[in-house]
């Protein structure tokens, strides 16, 4: 039995020993305060479980733990505050369970509302930036290629690793803040070159160029990827090389909902994959998969639990809507008025930029409701009557049935606009035939 003694607790009870630097040992023994001591105990325990032999300094963190799921999470965060915890690296916050700019929008019980607010306040007191967005990369938090960070929120992890080339594992709630407090993460998993190499090649040559040049394809591709690859790293070949960032965002969000994808490569697009060979690090893949139109069609169908007929609401913005997506929504909406609520979820920083440029009056007149700091699948916003929700987000399509009780229909943003105006499902099927 080997172990490191930290504040009276035996850590690393079996298997690998986690070697700490002098500074880390001091932190573990109280030199940086009680909160950092507890955080270091958790980081070292996780390092042991992950097989890490040492920790690595991180340059930033993104915290998913500020979304209220129950009173245990509040107790944890408030304990860190009571112990004078303070993050040691720049840290952004994910969505909470409240729209702080329009609190009346949320239908939670008084208890849940009060606790959600306490939780959000606690994380701000720990020194995190109140960004309240699941797309921190849209509001300036963009670590560079090869930079080690500790991020929570599954879509943000996939984006940071895949699109930015930064390095983070899929940090769970509570672990993210422990990394931020200590400034360290276990040196394991996606922090290491060997685990970033693609082992699966996905060939998309059988998919029509028209579909591949359309936004609606990417959440479907992501959903298929997550279900097919789980946590394996894939390189996707044959996609257009001018893919907009929003489409990659949608791909990663869907893949990390249906699977445990923390990193994917797109040949000729993402920074660690100038080509397939580089993404494979010169080695042979374990698997080659040819993506067929039938697979794509079947995946698209599985994203919906309802088919045709009346809809009760539309929701978009998971991950949070970008300025570019707002512009696209404006363009597609034209002069149409919506006959059902049309929720657009975004971050407060994006909303502020939108208001200082094109404004939101036109969208609001048409019936758009802009939700900030949170979104419709993490907290009760949709009318309690239930019904059918339409979305162009693969992540919303994945989580809506369990989290809201609504049936869901997946379509493009253009389909969502047409359907919201008509009050019933209108989808362009020609893309999928």
């Amino acid at each position, binding site marked *: 039995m080997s172990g490191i003694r930290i504040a009276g607790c035996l850590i690393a009870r079996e298997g690998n020993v986690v070697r700490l630097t002098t500074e880390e040992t001091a932190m573990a023994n109280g030199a940086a305060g009680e909160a950092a001591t507890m955080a270091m*105990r*958790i980081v070292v*325990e996780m390092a042991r479980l992950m097989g890490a032999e040492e920790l690595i300094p991180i340059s930033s963190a993104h915290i998913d733990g500020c979304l209220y799921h129950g009173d245990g999470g509040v*107790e944890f965060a408030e304990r860190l505050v009571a112990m004078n915890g303070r993050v040691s690296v720049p840290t952004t916050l994910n969505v909470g369970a409240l729209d702080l700019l329009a609190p009346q929008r949320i239908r939670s019980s008084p208890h849940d509302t009060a606790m959600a607010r306490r939780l959000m306040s606690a994380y701000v007191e720990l020194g995190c930036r109140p960004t309240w967005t699941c797309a921190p990369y849209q509001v300036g938090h963009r670590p560079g290629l090869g930079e080690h960070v500790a991020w929570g929120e599954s879509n943000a992890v996939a984006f940071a690793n895949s699109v930015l080339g930064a390095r983070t594992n899929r940090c769970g709630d509570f672990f993210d803040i422990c990394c931020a407090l200590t400034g360290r993460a276990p040196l394991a998993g996606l922090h290491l070159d060997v685990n970033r190499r693609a082992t699966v090649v996905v060939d998309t040559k059988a998919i029509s160029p028209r579909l591949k040049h359309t936004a609606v394809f990417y959440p479907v591709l992501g959903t298929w990827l997550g279900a097919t690859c789980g946590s394996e790293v894939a390189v996707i070949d044959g996609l257009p090389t001018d893919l907009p960032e929003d489409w990659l965002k949608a791909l990663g969000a869907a893949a990390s909902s249906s699977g445990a994808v923390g990193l994917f490569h797109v040949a000729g697009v993402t920074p660690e994959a100038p080509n397939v060979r580089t993404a494979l690090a010169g080695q042979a893949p374990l698997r080659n998969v040819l993506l067929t139109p039938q697979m794509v069609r079947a995946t698209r169908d599985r994203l919906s639990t309802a088919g045709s007929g009346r809809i009760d609401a539309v929701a978009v913005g998971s991950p949070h809507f970008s300025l570019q997506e707002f512009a696209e929504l404006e363009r597609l909406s034209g002069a149409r008025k919506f006959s059902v609520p049309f929720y657009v979820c975004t971050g407060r920083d994006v909303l502020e930029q939108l208001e200082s440029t094109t404004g939101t009056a036109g969208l609001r007149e048409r019936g758009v409701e802009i939700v900030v700091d949170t979104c419709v699948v993490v907290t009760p916003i949709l009318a309690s009557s239930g019904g059918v929700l339409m979305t162009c987000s693969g992540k919303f399509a994945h989580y809506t049935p369990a989290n809201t009780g609504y049936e869901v229909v997946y379509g493009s943003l253009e389909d969502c606009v047409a359907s919201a105006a008509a009050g019933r499902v209108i989808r362009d099927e020609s893309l999928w035939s």
Partner: protein
Amino acid sequence: MGAELTGRVLIAGNASGPLLRLESPISFWGGLDPHTGVISDPRHPDHGRRISGTVLAVPATIGSSSSSAIMLELLRNGVAPACLLLGRHDGILVLGVIVARELGYPVIPVIEMAPTALAQLPADQLVSVTEQGTVLY
């Protein structure tokens, strides 16, 4: 009983209960109600089953990084499984148990086992788990 399989101990402890082996990977957040312990994702093949008190075999974890928070609330609310047997996993569920231990909540053993080993365990029968990570069935 008479057969046994041993895995890697992530959190040590003794436990027993009926073995519930999930048919598909799961995200605890968006997949499991933390107040009741019932699988709430209508697309999951085990939708409607209750995990509380079971020796829960999870072939793979997917999805949300908030699953650790759901694990913590299951423990706090007294509706957690008696033990977790994890196949391919990313540490997010075991993290929920580690944080529960920090907060002084009741904790459960967590054992890592190959998915092929999980597949050999007898579904819905009473099994017990030892501190050494052995599942007796």
